[in-house]
């Protein structure tokens, strides 16, 4: 079932302006490499779904925008002949058809002979492990099963590109975690070029090879999950991918080339020297008991035990509340005076 040669998707200067002037998408360019899974990640209204629909052929980009699959300019092609498979947010399974008929629908409308169709549907049923459920109708399936039918139906015609529109949003939290790993495995096995739209950063990280974080109709940053998490382009990306602390630097700190967090003072890395604020992830901080004579020490204001870690909120003079994730066996109590251990190598820039 693997696509013989995966497709490269190239989006060039695609914008979308709706009647009335609303700009859903600013001119956007992006390439998805053959066999790559790319996540479009962002809050609702950021333009990620519009961009997906431009690639699908459901939305025509404004004049000048082009979509290419390898050397084939598909901009003018409607979705029917574009060769894309699509998984919809609520699956959009045909309610009156069985699992088998849903998966085989694309083959049937293309006039694939019955015997061939049966064989292919059988393969797909095995691929998504739905054996025994072929004759059920969608209403008789669980959320996870529906999701698999939708996926099998979308890849049945061996599309050049697979488009996933919030494929796991309709599921409950536990199932979501199990299914996103399954989905990631399946996409690797199919080695199909895929674009995956989601607002859930964990889902994007679990499924995609690269993430494109979007905001207000534009892509803010593209890269592998780890690169974006460790070196975000701006606080929006940093905050969208996980929790983050802002540490404010006074002009004196900037002049002295240091970052100060209460009594903790570290040398500021050269790359961040001009930053008025720097960012640091909660898990990159640690705490130590403060010396007894310290007046400027930080104070623990909140302590939440989360099993695998301890979540602390610490108040430091001159700073917004600082969040820390520390090993859960640490003996920390609300009101304890502590000093924060800051590793300069873990600091991230807050601006360009």
């Amino acid at each position, binding site marked *: 079932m693997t696509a013989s040669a995966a497709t490269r998707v190239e989006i060039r200067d695609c914008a979308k302006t709706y009647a009335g002037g609303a700009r859903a998408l600013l001119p956007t360019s992006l390439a998805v490499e053959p066999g790559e899974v790319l996540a479009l990640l962002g809050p609702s209204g950021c333009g990620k779904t519009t961009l997906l629909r431009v690639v699908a052929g459901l939305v025509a980009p404004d004049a000048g925008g082009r979509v290419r699959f390898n050397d084939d300019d598909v901009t003018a092609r409607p*979705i*029917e002949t574009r060769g894309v498979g699509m998984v*919809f*947010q609520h699956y*959009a399974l*045909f*309610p009156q058809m069985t699992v088998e008929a849903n998966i085989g*629908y694309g083959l049937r*409308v293309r006039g694939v002979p019955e015997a061939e169709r049966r064989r292919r549907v059988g393969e797909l049923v095995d691929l998504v492990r739905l054996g025994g459920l072929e004759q059920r109708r969608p209403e008789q399936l669980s959320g996870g099963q529906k999701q698999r039918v939708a996926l099998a139906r979308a890849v049945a015609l061996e599309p050049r590109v697979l488009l996933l529109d919030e494929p796991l949003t309709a599921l409950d939290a536990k199932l979501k975690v199990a299914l996103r790993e399954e989905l990631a495995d399946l996409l690797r096995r199919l080695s199909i070029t895929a674009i995956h739209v989601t607002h859930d950063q964990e889902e994007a990280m679990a499924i995609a090879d690269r993430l494109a974080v979007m905001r207000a109709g534009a892509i803010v940053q593209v890269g592998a999950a780890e690169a974006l998490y460790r070196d975000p382009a701006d606080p929006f990306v940093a905050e969208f991918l996980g929790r983050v602390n802002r540490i404010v630097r006074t002009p004196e700190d900037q002049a002295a080339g240091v970052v100060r967090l209460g009594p903790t003072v570290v040398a500021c890395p050269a790359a961040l020297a001009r930053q008025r604020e720097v960012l640091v992830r909660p898990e990159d901080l640690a705490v130590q008991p403060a010396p007894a004579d310290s007046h400027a020490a930080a104070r623990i204001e909140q302590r939440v035990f989360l099993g695998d870690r301890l979540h602390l909120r610490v108040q430091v003079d001159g700073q917004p509340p600082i969040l820390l994730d520390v090993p859960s066996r640490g003996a920390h109590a609300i009101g304890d005076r502590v000093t924060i251990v800051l590793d300069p190598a873990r600091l991230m820039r807050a601006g360009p």
Partner: protein
Amino acid sequence: MSEQRPAPILFAITLAVSVFTVAPMLVSVAAGLVNNYSVGARSGYTLRWLAEVWSQYGSTAWNSIALALACVACGVAVGVPCAYALARSRTRAARAFEELITLPVAVPGLATALALILAYGEWRDFRQSFAFVFVGHAVFTLPFMVRTVAAAFAHDDLVALEEAARSLGASFVQRFLGVLVPAVLPSIVAGSLMVFTLSIGEFNLTWMLHTPLTRTLPVGLADSYASARLEIGSAYTLIFFMVVLPALWLMQWLATFLGPRTGRPAP
């Protein structure tokens, strides 16, 4: 959780309203079965009025049923595609058209009928045929089908279903007949039931449009009330029930039968 307490006063009110509503029907039906209404039950019961009505007006029953079925057919053939077009179009013209086809519901049937007669009354063969009455009924019943089905087509789920079918390469005809119509079939059945019911009972438009040879059940009913004995009019009511109720039950059964079986494999 507090359990609902029985309220005797509400029960009494409900019972009173029910009796008040049902009594005229029962009285009317009984009046059609007694020998002499002014004497009452003492005059004995008979089926002779029923037989008389059936011999005089029996043909109107078939006329009405045929007319109602024709309206349903017209609703399905014209109304369903029209509903789809309206549900998918966001233009101002489409909204205006939707208002326009609803107009015959608000305008008195007499006015609609008068307009039809003024416009087409000179076309004698058309004027004297059932087609003339059918046009009136179709104009009146179509909006009920269109509105019901358009609401179903406009649903987000249906939009996604259509996009899914498109992404799998289905042509317009393939997705319309294979995916969309089966998915809105419950609404089409509901609309058909409404169209059938409205056409069967339609009086004021039909009364203006009919000729002595193109009478429907309600027109015949008015005729018998106006011109024959009270017993005959009442027997006519009974006939009306006997014709309409089985037809309605059949349509209702069809609706519940089709409900869970909405559709078959795509073409």
